[in-house]
């Protein structure tokens, strides 16, 4: 061992001494002007630099080394040093970046050959946002892709809708990470991501067949490069998160005034003699929210040579929630290596291990919104303040204290192993084995406590859930590439199989030993179900699982003639256990054409036009995220019967629902017509697509007569939804006087969402509970968007007795008792003189009419600046928390503008606690449009000369702000309300965890 070490040292030493080192200087230009930021690397080493603002560079190289010059949009050059001291280089522009590659399904394609609609986001753009979620980082970056944070809780992901909401059911896109097929990417750390490709049209997604209908996101993680020796990277940031905006709630005095007013309006005595005596009282929002840190540290080592490349990274992120009592922590490790075994065979793996821990904050938003500001957080005795003086609202601080133990953890391994065999020139075979194994645990403990009569728990309880997900993928593909004269073909064929096994255990135990020291679940060894003296009964625990299998064939052909005419055709056949016996296999074809007009003789010499391509595609794709129980419903259990003299329970279970052997995927047909253009040396780029996307065979409950006798109506493929719109992307990049580089990228998208059918005999789907009394806020009908808001139109407020007498009211409403002056006048739409449920109508939709974003970047002498503006327009929000008044709770300040006498208000009624003015109506519908500075960042990169002195290749520090500012008329925390992606409840604000504003400072260094 010692000998080997010695040998190693001596070799290193001798090579150090033997190598003749020289300093090379020079200038890099494009023939006219100097080029800034050209990367120069000594081939086979980690030594490198970039050109400064005058295009000059300087670096040390071995005298016999080779310098590699590369710059985006230009052809890379390799120049041997040959002991020269000065090497000036003229870079040649890569004609329209001909060979720029884009990742597509099962391979890569030249960007110029692309016939489908594919957008790329690079690592640099993903890492600008301080978030643990790659999904959130994509917000406002891609035309046609609406990314909405699920909510603001720590570690939250995002709801992604590509080109509208494709179905009444699960409209989430499909994810591919380094070839592994997945339904989520919550495990990914943004620092590991090299690029995200979003496949939008059928030509791009049809290769994923029954999983392509809602679009596909392909994530490629960072790999080592064979050109470089070790590059050690360190990046870290620290951020401070806070609430962007508080809801304007009444303070104690205003609350007491409103209570008095409400009592007076009801005809009851005023409860508060002297409202002013309360002062401002308690601001419960201040009690539950806090300024919370977010920190991230990432270390990586990447490099390689001709035999292997490696990339090892470790990442730690901790995000505390701005709502007290919650945080998220994730530690992830990733190893992406390739090994060239011989000339023909390469093997490799992309492998990551992730451990996340979440502490969920109790849902205090509801209580903080309604708790009377007259109540103290704690009273003079130190006990939690009584918030129930006027109604049944819990004390949020007590909730935080007693219900704080709610934790989850996830241990997950995601990765793939592959073998590439180069069978002969042009033909390669790849076997890919993917694995996603995750083990999730959650525990919730509620101790015995008593704050008030309505906020108490008499019997403690422990809920434990353990889930295991094992997802295995086995893919075999053959790829053939050949160019013969003007013809270029690329053929792909493959067979893939995937299995998914899930196991769920849920247990609930009660009456665990009470321990004063364990109120917050602080003693771990007491949090096990074996200690429960009651429960885990059959009704309270379950142990089950589900699984599915899929087997597919896939084919694709790309053909390019004369660099002008492009044809792509693909076909996938999916067989899945999720589908019924009669429809086991689905076929998903697509075809696309492209025409690179710029290559035609009549445009070839048009100087200002650098690129013009027309493309059109059509295809059929599917959505297999369907309720697979519908094909063969589970037997209904616990239908026990009693028999015998001793009255014993005998187990009963039977089939109570109908199987649907015809159950199958939801099928989308998408047509896309678009063009790409570049002007002025591609400084100005434009891409525009029109799409028409119709989903048929959407799963819906069939309305059937009751005599058929099923417990639930069978689920059938019957509904239809249309999404149609434009995606536009405009980019401008330039460099002023060679010094100030800047770029502007604007994206614009529209979606027209319309339900075309709901299945035979079905005309409407009510949904979107507003949180009170089973009232529903949306109605989806043929011709409406999915989840359109539905309720009464408000004409005004009854100003006087005359109006009260003459204008339409609800039947049974006696003026003066059931309805009074100051109440809302609802519109009598059917003109029958009374207000009935038939007078309800469509009030608007939470689906935006259009969205746009502008990303601006600039750099000058090492200082870089970027800002992103995002705007969502035309969407409505139902302020359900203002609507829902179960009992007397606090009011929003807007109640102060309520009607008090004739002429005081014609939109806000007199103050009441509940009743007729709280129907789902336009009163509670607000404009959810907003424009936000999603991100702003300023950074400084140390000049290379200085960096190298401290042995750094690159060193950048920055300060950034995420969600810096939002302009919106909406009164709640945020108009971005997803309700978990429930298409019937999007935009219904029942109290959403607001997304934080985050200020960060960070550093990126490469050694």
């Amino acid at each position, binding site marked *: 061992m010692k000998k080997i070490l010695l040998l190693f040292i001596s070799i290193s030493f001798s090579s150090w001494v033997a190598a003749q080192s020289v300093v090379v200087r020079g200038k890099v230009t494009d023939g006219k002007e100097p080029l800034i930021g050209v990367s120069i690397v000594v081939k086979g080493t980690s030594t490198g630099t970039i050109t400064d603002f005058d295009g000059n560079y300087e670096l040390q190289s071995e005298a016999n080394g080779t310098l590699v010059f590369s710059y985006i949009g230009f052809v890379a050059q390799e120049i041997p040093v040959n002991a020269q001291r000065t090497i000036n280089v003229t870079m040649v522009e890569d004609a329209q970046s001909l060979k720029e590659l884009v990742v597509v399904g099962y391979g890569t394609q030249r960007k110029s050959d692309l016939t489908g609609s594919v957008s790329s986001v690079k690592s640099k753009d993903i890492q600008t946002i301080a978030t643990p979620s790659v999904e959130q980082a994509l917000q406002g970056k891609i035309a046609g892709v609406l990314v909405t944070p699920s909510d603001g809780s720590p570690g939250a992901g995002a709801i992604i809708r590509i080109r509208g909401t494709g179905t009444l059911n699960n409209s989430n896109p499909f994810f591919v990470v380094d070839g592994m097929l997945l339904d989520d990417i919550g495990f990914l750390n943004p620092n590991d991501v090299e690029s995200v490709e979003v496949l939008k049209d059928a030509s791009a997604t049809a290769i994923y067949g029954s999983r392509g209908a809602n679009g596909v996101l392909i994530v490629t993680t960072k790999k080592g490069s064979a050109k470089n020796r070790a590059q050690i990277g360190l990046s870290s940031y620290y951020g401070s998160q806070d609430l962007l905006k508080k809801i304007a709630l009444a303070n104690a005095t205003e609350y007491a005034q409103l209570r008095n007013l409400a009592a007076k309006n009801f005809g009851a005595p005023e409860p508060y003699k002297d409202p002013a005596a309360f002062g401002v009282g308690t601001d419960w929002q201040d009690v539950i929210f806090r300024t919370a840190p977010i920190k991230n540290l990432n270390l990586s080592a990447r490099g390689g040579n001709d035999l292997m490349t490696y990339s090892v990274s470790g990442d730690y992120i901790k995000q505390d929630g701005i709502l007290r009592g919650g945080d998220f922590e994730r530690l992830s490790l990733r190893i992406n290596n390739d090994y060239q075994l011989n000339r023909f065979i390469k093997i490799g793996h992309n492998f990551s291990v992730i451990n996340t821990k979440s502490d969920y904050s109790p849902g205090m938003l509801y209580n903080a919104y309604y708790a009377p500001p007259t109540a103290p957080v704690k009273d003079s005795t130190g006990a939690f303040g009584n918030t129930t003086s006027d109604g049944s609202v819990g004390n949020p601080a007590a909730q935080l204290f007693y219900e704080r133990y709610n934790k989850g953890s996830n241990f997950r391994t995601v990765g793939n192993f592959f073998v590439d*065999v180069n069978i002969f020139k042009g033909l390669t075979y790849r076997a890919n084995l993917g694995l996603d194994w995750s083990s999730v645990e959650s525990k919730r403990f509620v101790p015995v406590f008593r704050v008030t009569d309505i906020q108490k728990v008499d019997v403690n309880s422990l809920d434990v859930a353990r889930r295991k997900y094992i997802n295995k993928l086995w893919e075999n593909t053959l790829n053939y590439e050949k160019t013969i004269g003007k013809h270029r073909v690329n053929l792909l064929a493959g067979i893939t199989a995937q299995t998914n096994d899930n196991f769920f255990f849920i247990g609930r135990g009660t009456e665990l030993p009470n321990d004063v020291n364990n109120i917050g679940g602080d003693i771990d060894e007491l949090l096990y179900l074996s200690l429960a003296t009651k429960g885990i009964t059959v009704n309270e625990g379950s142990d089950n699982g589900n699984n*599915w299998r899929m087997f597919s064939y896939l084919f694709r052909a790309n053909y390019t003639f004369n660099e002008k005419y492009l044809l792509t055709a693909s076909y996938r056949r999916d067989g899945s256990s999720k589908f019924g016996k009669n429809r086991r296999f689905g076929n998903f074809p697509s075809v696309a054409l492209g025409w690179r007009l710029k290559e035609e003789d009549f445009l070839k010499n048009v100087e200002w036009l650098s690129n013009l391509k027309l493309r059109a595609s059509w295809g059929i794709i599917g959505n297999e995220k369907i309720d697979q129980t519908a094909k063969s419903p589970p037997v209904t259990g616990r239908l026990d*019967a*009693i028999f*015998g*003299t001793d009255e014993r329970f*005998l187990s009963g279970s039977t089939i109570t629902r*109908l199987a649907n052997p015809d159950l199958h995927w939801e099928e989308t047909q998408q047509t896309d017509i678009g063009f790409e253009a570049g002007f002025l040396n591609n400084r100005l780029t434009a891409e525009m697509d029109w799409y028409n996307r119709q989903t048929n065979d959407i799963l819906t409950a069939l*309305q059937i007569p*009751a005599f058929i006798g099923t417990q639930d109506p069978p689920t059938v493929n019957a509904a239809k939804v249309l999404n149609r719109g434009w995606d536009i992307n405009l980019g401008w990049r330039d460099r002023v006087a060679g010094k100030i580089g800047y770029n502007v990228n604007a994206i614009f998208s529209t979606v027209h969402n319309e339900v075309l059918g709901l299945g035979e005999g079905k005309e409407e789907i009510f949904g979107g509970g507003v949180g009170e009394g089973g009232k529903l806020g949306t109605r989806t009908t043929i011709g409406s968007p999915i989840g359109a808001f539905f309720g009464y139109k408000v004409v005004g407020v009854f100003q006087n007795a005359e109006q009260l007498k003459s204008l339409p009211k609800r039947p049974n409403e006696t003026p003066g008792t059931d309805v009074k002056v100051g109440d809302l006048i609802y519109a009598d739409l059917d003109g029958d003189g009374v207000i009935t449920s038939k007078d309800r109508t469509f009030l608007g939709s939470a689906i935006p009419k259009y969205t746009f974003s502008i990303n601006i970047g600039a750099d000058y002498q090492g200082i870089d600046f970027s800002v992103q503006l995002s705007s969502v327009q035309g969407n409505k929000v139902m302020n359900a928390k203002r609507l829902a008044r179960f009992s007397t709770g606090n009011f929003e300040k807007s109640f102060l503008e309520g009607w008090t006498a004739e002429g005081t208000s014609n939109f806000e009624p007199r103050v009441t606690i509940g009743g007729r003015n709280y129907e789902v109506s336009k009163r509670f519908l607000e404009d959810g449009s907003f424009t936000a500075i999603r991100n702003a960042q300023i950074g400084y990169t140390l000049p290379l000369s200085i960096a190298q002195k401290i042995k750094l290749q690159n060193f950048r520090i920055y300060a950034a702000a995420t969600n810096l500012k939002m302009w919106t008329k909406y009164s709640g925390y945020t108009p971005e309300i997803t309700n978990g992606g429930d298409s019937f409840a999007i935009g219904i604000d029942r109290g959403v965890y607001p997304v934080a504003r985050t200020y960060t400072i960070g550093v990126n260094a490469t050694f």
Partner: protein
Amino acid sequence: MTPKIVKISLFTLLLLAGCKDSYYDIQPRGELTAENFFKTEEHAKVATNAIYNVLRNWEIHVFAFMGCTDIISDDADKGSEPNDALFLLDIDNLAFDAGNVAPVTLWQGYYRAIFRANIAIERIPEVKGDENLKKRLVDEAKFLRAYFYFNLVRWYGDLPLITKQLTQNDFKQTRAKTADVYAQIIADLKESITVLPEKSQYPAADLGRATKGAARGLLSKVYLTQKDYTNAEKYALEVITSNEYTLLADYGKIFTREGENSSESLFEVQSTVNDERTDGGSQFNEVQGVRGSPNLGWGFNRPSDAFILEFEPGDPRREATVLYEGEVLPDGSALVEKNPRVFNARFNQKAWVPKHAGENGSGPGNIRLLRYADVLLIAAEALNENGKTADALKYLNAVRKRARGTIPNIIPDVTITEKTKLREAIWHERRVELGMEQQRWFDLIRTGQAEAALKKHGKNFVKNKHELLPIPQSEIDLSAGTLTQNPGY
């Protein structure tokens, strides 16, 4: 080149490609589905139990059931607070339409029950197991299916006659003629009679299952309803001569917890609740329980004045049937206090149960569906129609004798021999003996007394309309024109 790897991979490819249908036939874990159910004897048993389970359901024997048997008749009023469950007030006043909740609920509930019975009848023969047991289970299901259809056909007349699991292709159904529905009921019951054991032949653990006696008794009632007195007599007498049943000496005892499955019980819905499980009961007791104090119920199904007046002087059955304000509860635990929100409250004492672990929501009392006294009166009625007056009187007086008990000078033996008079005496006896046992409406319709009796009771009975309930409007809408409405609705 390394062809080996290629070979291995290609081989694997072929293997996978060779996957047959079985590759996709996987089942969820920890759950049975239609595909792996009905494989074992155990499955046959639990599927049969699941039909019995339905007998305790809200839709089958609780709220709407009270409504469309007692409340709709002249024996009971809606009860409860005046504004509670207004749809039942419409039932009470014969003011209901095709959207009324009660007929909608019954229709849905009974067809769901029939679905469970059909599944068992269709699929149990597939399972591997004891052939005799399988036969018995199928015939228990047939007995239950016959019971469900018997109630349905009496309520609605012509019906979609569903005797198997439907597939999407046969969702369109028309109403089968009443006679065809009865033919199916009779066929099911006749088969049950051949296979099902007598009550005494079942082991104690199976108490509560359908028996030969129950099938015979129900069949005699079916024939009586069809006015086939020969067969009604035949099957009622078969029950009597089987010597399986005797009248319980104390009439009042029948409806206590101790009186469950008494010697005169042919079929009753088994219910129980205990400290461990409260899901073995039904809301039968609750909806008819005392509203107010002591509060164990909702107070629906209030015995009417007319019903109380029907009793002969001193008939102890009146006190055993009606629970009044101010009366001591049957278990002596408390007084029924006056509830200011209910006018002149009265309750169905036959549905009363003492305090139990199920509290509100799940009562432990069995629901008595067929008693020996009922069979004796069926026999009496059929025998009278068949001219066998002496035998008719024998069975009628047996019922009266038991009611009389040891009290002298009340409810004397009937001695009428004139057919019409005797018929009326038997009908009177049915009303008081089976009062508040959800029989009255069916008897009124069956005997043609409905119009006169209900008009006398102040209800606007419309002839050729109110004999039948309306088919739920939603059913007619969803059937796309294949279902027709009953006349008058």
